[in-house]
């Protein structure tokens, strides 16, 4: 026997929508609705709490009462330098991974993307083992150049680059793989050398992904905590970035912690909006 559904009411608006665009009912099945609402609440409520608990009256005082400005400046410049370094060395690596072939390429790609899933604190430990004064690379830097990396702003940049550069690399590599090679062939027949093709055709064509990757990289570097605190420590003005400042402020001065968090939230929202408008419209970042 065939069960028939009783006629249901269709609002004029829904009727117009379905007529214009076609398609079946858009109403959400009940078993999906409750978990979806819980998930949304879980993601939104803590942020709302941050806004509700914010000491709006003395926000400025809370920020200036701590090392906030120092931490913010340090965070901004190290994240920016990290992004610059990642562009200079990460984009060529993305090209090599996408375009050339050599033994061990798959292994290299896996290793390059490993920091994406590696707990950052492990990255920090690894950096320490390599670059500390007794590390297998740091030993020679110290002996030959008197250069000590850990617990300096340079260590902050290195920790952030280790964690954030893979985001840029995989974004750009994906774009290079899917880019239309026809344009590069055309450029070659027009007399362009491989380097000219890269500079004048390949890079401009993947510019949107390059931008998206750079922003992702910058945002990841700005929020970096685990690798930084392990490898660079937390010396105010030297290596104490915003996330680390928030963490310590929470113990002594919760209002300052909330204020600092708000600043990071604001920066994140600005980044997200700029990404949405410029690069994420209807597409994927990868």
């Amino acid at each position, binding site marked *: 026997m065939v069960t028939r559904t009783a006629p249901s009411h269709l609002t004029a608006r829904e009727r117009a929508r379905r007529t214009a665009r076609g398609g079946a009912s858009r109403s959400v099945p009940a078993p999906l609705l409750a978990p979806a609402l819980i998930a949304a609440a879980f993601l939104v409520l803590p942020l709302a709490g941050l806004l509700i608990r914010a000491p709006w009256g003395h926000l400025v005082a809370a920020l200036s009462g701590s090392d906030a400005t120092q931490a913010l400046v340090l965070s901004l410049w190290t994240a920016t330098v990290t992004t610059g370094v990642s562009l200079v060395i990460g984009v060529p690596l993305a090209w090599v991974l996408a375009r050339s072939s050599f033994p061990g390429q798959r292994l290299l790609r896996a290793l390059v993307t490993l920091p994406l899933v590696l707990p950052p604190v492990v990255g920090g430990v690894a950096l320490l083992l390599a670059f500390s004064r007794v590390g297998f690379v740091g030993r020679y830097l110290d002996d030959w150049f008197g250069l000590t990396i850990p617990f300096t702003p340079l260590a902050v940049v290195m920790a952030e680059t280790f964690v954030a550069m893979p985001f840029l690399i995989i974004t750009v590599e994906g774009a290079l793989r899917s880019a239309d090679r026809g*344009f590069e062939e*055309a*450029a*070659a*027949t*027009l*007399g362009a050398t491989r380097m000219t093709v890269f500079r*004048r055709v390949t890079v*401009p*064509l993947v510019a949107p992904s390059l931008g998206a990757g750079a922003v992702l990289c910058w945002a990841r570097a700005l929020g970096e905590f685990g690798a930084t605190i392990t490898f660079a420590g937390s010396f105010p003005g030297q290596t104490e970035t915003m996330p680390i400042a928030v963490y310590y402020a929470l113990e002594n001065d919760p209002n300052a912690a909330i204020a600092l968090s708000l600043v990071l939230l604001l920066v994140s929202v600005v980044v997200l909006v700029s990404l949405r408008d410029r690069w994420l419209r209807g597409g994927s970042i990868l």
Partner: protein
Amino acid sequence: MRHEGEDGLVVDAEIRRGSFSLAVSLAAAPGQVLGVLGPNGAGKSTLLSAAAGLTPVSAGRIMLAGQVMDDADAGTFVEASGRPVGFVFQNYRLFPHLTVAENVAFSPRARGLGRRAARSAASHWIDRLRLTDLADRKPDQLSGGQAQRVALARALAGQPTLLLLDEPLSALDAGTRLDVQAELKRHLADFTGPCLLVTHDPLEALVLADQLIVLEDGRIVQEGTPAHIARRPATDYVAKLVGLNLYAGHADGSQVALTGGGAFVIPDQGQHGEVLVAVRPSALVVSNQRPQPSSARNTWPAKIAGLTLLADRVRLDLDGQPPALADVTPAAVAELSLDAGSQVWLTVKATELEVYNHDHIRPEGSPSCSWRRVCG
């Protein structure tokens, strides 16, 4: 060693890719437009790719203006960027991030001119191809015909010795096609080097090319002037393209016994042996009763398998000994009540039959095979 193909393009090579093999021997003289006609997958684009240096040959060699571009035996290879070649790609491949002027200036700039010198070199071609008003536009703001002109200007701005055109008109709609075709013909006439034009459109080939080669399954099956090929096709593919019925058979004086069954009476010119017979569909007379004996010497029954309305006539697809395509007027279809399945009689005068030898693939005066592995 200078090849007998002197200053033009000489290709005498084989390109193997998986199970596909393209083996051609051809020469294009300076100022000549050599059309390469063939179905999809025949190897036309591979040929252009090899001439441009985007695909190395597997065996044999490619010479341009007396210089070796690619020689598999000697291991010589000139990279694409080092060849004096202009390539107009099928979908033009205009750089989407550059303006028209920057696209045209790309080659002079890539070949070492400064920004300003490249611009002025480009502006010559921009004027010449009537692109002045479009110079600041991006490719996505161009019509198909305009994009085609930009692609041609961009290829010519590098001052190539060899021009390669891959289906130059296929991306255009029917309306603009004829105009662009006429203009392209003028520009090709001005080009002093050899030009290789690949197409699967017979009209394009007949109008634009001075000399044609027909490529099927990686082999040259016919070459000659467009007029020659249109009149005496060597394969079913070419016959279909130029709209002729083609039959292979054995001639014996005034009789041809057709390989697929049936026979024709032909004007006796003392022909013997394997021949091809070409007949225009409009030369066939269709009647629905056995015609009275007349001066027309060939009459045979056939059954209509299909009807297709062409612009001003109806093409009948006829099963018989031999099968044929015949063109009649729509009025005749109505008066004779012709329909799929109808039995009809076909008549054709012996003088309407074009009878020629099978081995007329390579007419005299064409380059002969110089490389035994290709021509075996």
